[in-house]
C-alpha cells in the first residue's frame, strides 16, 4: 500500500553521461512495487522547488530491502537529487500508479526502450524473466549515441536477446529502435506457422502471440503503437511520462486523452449531451499518475 517513507540513499552512480543510478533503502517499496510503478521523491527540504519529482522504479532487491532509481539530470529537481549524498535520507511516496500487465499465458515478450525509458524496463525484464523465462524475452534499446546507451549490461546479464540502436550509428544498428522493432516483427512467423530458423522461443508463438512493452519519448512510443497495431501483435503497453503535480491522482494535472470505449465522459446521464454539446464522447482524459502510467497503446489518442 502506498505510503510516505524516509529512505536512506546508499549510493549514486553515474552510469552514462548525466545519467545516475541511485540505490535507496526502502523495504516496503522494494517488496510491494510492480514494474512500471513509480515513486515521488522530495528532492528539497525547502519550498522551492515545492513539488516532489516522480521516478519509475528501476530495480528492486526485496531480500535486502533496496530499490533503485535511474534518472537523467534534466532540470532543477534532478540536479538537486544528484547532489544528495550517500547516508542522507529523502522522503519517498510510493509505490504509485499502475504498472505493466505481464500476461497470463506464455508469449514472446519484446521490450522496447528509448533513452532513459529503459529505467522501468530493467525491473520489467527482471519480472518477466522470473514469470516466463528469459528465453522468451527480447530487449530492443535505442539511444541517440553510444555514450547514452544505458542498461545494456543489465539486460544482457539476464541472458535475454538484446538489440541496440543508436541514432548516429555510433553503436549497434544505425537508426531508430522502432526500425529494429519493425524488422524483428517481420522476422516472426505469420499466424499459424512457425518459421524455419525462427528466433522465437515458444513454438506456439506467432506475431499474434507477441507482447510488446515500451517506454521512451512520446514520438517513439506513438511509432511503437502504430507498428504493433499494423503488425497485429496481441498486446502493446506503453508507459507515459507527463508533468505531474501530485502524483497521487488528486490534481488531474497529468492527463492523457484516452478512447472512451464506454463513453465515460459526456454520457453519464445517458443519451446525447444536450446541455454541453461541446463534450466529446469519443475520448476522455485519464490521469497518467493514477490511471497509468502504463496504458494499453490501443487506448491512447496519439497526438
Amino acid at each position, binding site marked *: *500500500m*502506498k*505510503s*510516505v*517513507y*524516509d529512505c536512506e540513499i546508499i549510493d549514486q552512480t553515474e552510469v552514462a553521461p548525466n545519467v545516475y543510478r541511485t540505490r535507496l533503502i526502502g523495504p*516496503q517499496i522494494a517488496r510491494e512495487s510492480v514494474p512500471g510503478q513509480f515513486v515521488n521523491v*522530495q528532492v528539497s527540504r525547502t*519550498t*522551492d*522547488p*515545492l*513539488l*516532489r519529482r516522480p521516478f519509475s522504479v528501476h530495480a528492486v532487491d526485496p531480500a535486502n530491502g533496496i530499490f533503485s532509481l535511474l534518472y537523467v539530470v534534466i532540470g532543477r529537481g534532478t540536479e538537486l537529487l544528484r547532489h544528495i549524498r550517500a547516508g542522507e535520507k529523502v*522522503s519517498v*511516496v510510493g509505490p504509485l500508479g499502475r504498472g505493466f500487465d505481464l500476461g497470463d499465458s506464455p508469449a514472446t515478450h519484446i521490450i522496447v526502450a528509448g533513452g532513459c525509458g529503459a529505467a522501468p524496463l530493467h525491473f520489467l525484464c527482471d519480472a518477466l524473466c522470473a514469470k516466463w523465462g528469459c528465453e522468451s524475452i527480447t530487449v530492443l534499446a535505442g539511444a541517440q549515441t553510444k555514450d547514452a546507451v544505458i542498461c545494456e549490461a543489465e539486460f544482457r546479464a539476464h541472458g535475454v536477446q538484446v538489440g541496440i540502436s543508436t541514432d548516429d550509428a555510433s553503436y549497434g544498428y544505425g537508426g531508430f529502435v522502432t526500425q529494429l522493432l519493425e524488422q524483428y516483427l517481420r522476422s516472426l512467423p505469420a499466424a499459424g506457422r512457425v518459421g524455419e530458423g525462427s528466433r522465437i522461443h515458444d513454438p506456439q508463438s506467432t506475431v499474434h502471440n507477441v507482447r510488446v512493452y515500451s517506454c521512451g519519448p512520446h514520438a517513439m512510443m506513438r511509432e511503437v503503437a502504430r507498428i504493433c497495431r499494423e503488425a497485429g501483435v496481441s498486446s502493446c503497453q506503453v508507459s507515459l511520462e*507527463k*508533468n*505531474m*503535480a*501530485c*502524483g*497521487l*491522482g*488528486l*490534481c*488531474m*494535472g*497529468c*492527463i*492523457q486523452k484516452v478512447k472512451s470505449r464506454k463513453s*465515460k*465522459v*459526456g454520457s*453519464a*446521464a445517458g443519451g446525447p*449531451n444536450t*446541455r*454541453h454539446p461541446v*463534450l*466529446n464522447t469519443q475520448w*476522455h*482524459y485519464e490521469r497518467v499518475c*493514477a490511471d497509468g502510467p502504463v496504458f494499453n497503446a490501443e487506448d491512447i489518442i496519439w497526438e
Partner: protein
Amino acid sequence: MGVNPNRGVSGFERSGNPETPNLSVEIGRILMKNPVTVASGTFGFGLEMADFYDLSRLGAITVKGTSLEPWQGNAYPRTVETASGVLNAIGLQNDGLESLISDKLPFLRQFDVPVIVNIVGHSVEEYAELAGRLDKVEGVAGLEINISCPNVKQGCLVFGTTPEGTAEVVRAVRANTSLTVITKLSPNVTDVVSIAKAAVDAGSDALSLINTFLGTAIDPYKRKFRLANITGGLSGPAIKPIALRMVYEVAQSVNVPIIGMGGIMTAADAIEFLVAGASAVAVGTANFVNPLAAVEIISGIEDYLAKMKITDVNEIVGTVT
C-alpha cells in the same frame, strides 16, 4: 514511517482527558471535530488519500468541484511549478453530479467526517439545480459555492468578481437548500470585503477564502506559455501572505465563520490563519507535497494549544493584535 497512531489528532478521541484541548469548531451547522479541512481540488473525493490515513481524522472533507454534467477540463499542460508555488489550469474536470452521488459519496459515507461538496456551474440556474439535488442527499453536510475558479471561461469567476453576481448565485443556492452554505471567494478582485458582505447578506452561512491567484508562466527559450490555458491559478506557500491579509480583512467585516486557506504547509501557518480570524482552515497544495500534511497540521495545532495552555481552539480565533 507513516502516521504515528499515538499522536492523537482528534479532540473527540481523547475528550475525557482534561489536558486535551478542545479542537472542535462549528461552520454553520457543520460540526468539525477539529478546524482542518482540505481544499477542493487537492484531495479528489478522498479515495486516493484513504491509504495514507483514516479520513475520519479530518475536521471535514471538501471534495473536488462538481457540476451537473461531466466536464472534460482543459488541455495539457495543466500545471506548472513556480517559485514556492504551483500554477494550475485544470478547468474543473469532473464526472458530474450523478457520479458524485452514485460513485463517490458511498465511499465517503464509510468515514465519520462531514463532507462539503464544492459546486460549480455555468449559470445561476445550474448552481440552483445542484443545490436542490444535493439538499437531501445522505452524507452531504454542506455546499461550497465555487464562484472563484479562474480557469473556466463561462460562469464561475464571472459571478465571483462582483457583489451583485455573488449575491445572485448565493440567493439561488440558499433558496434551494437547507444545508450549510459556504461561499468560496476569489482573490482576483479589487475589494474582497464588498463581495464577502454581499455573500453573507444573500444568505451564506460561512465563507471560504481564498481561491487561487490568476497568473501565468512563460518558457523564455520557446517564448511560449507553459499552460495550454495560458493563465492558471497560483497556489502554495507563495500566496500565503496575501491570503492571510484577505482573511484578516474579511474577518474584520463579517460575522460568519471563515474557512481560511492559501499556502498552508504547517501547523504554524494554520494557526496564523486562525488568529487572523478564520474559524477553520483548509490544507490544499500541501497535500501534493506531503500526503500526511493535513493530519500533521491537526496534531501540530493540538500540540500548540497544549503548550500554550489554551483549552479551546476557538479562543484563539481572531485574536491577532
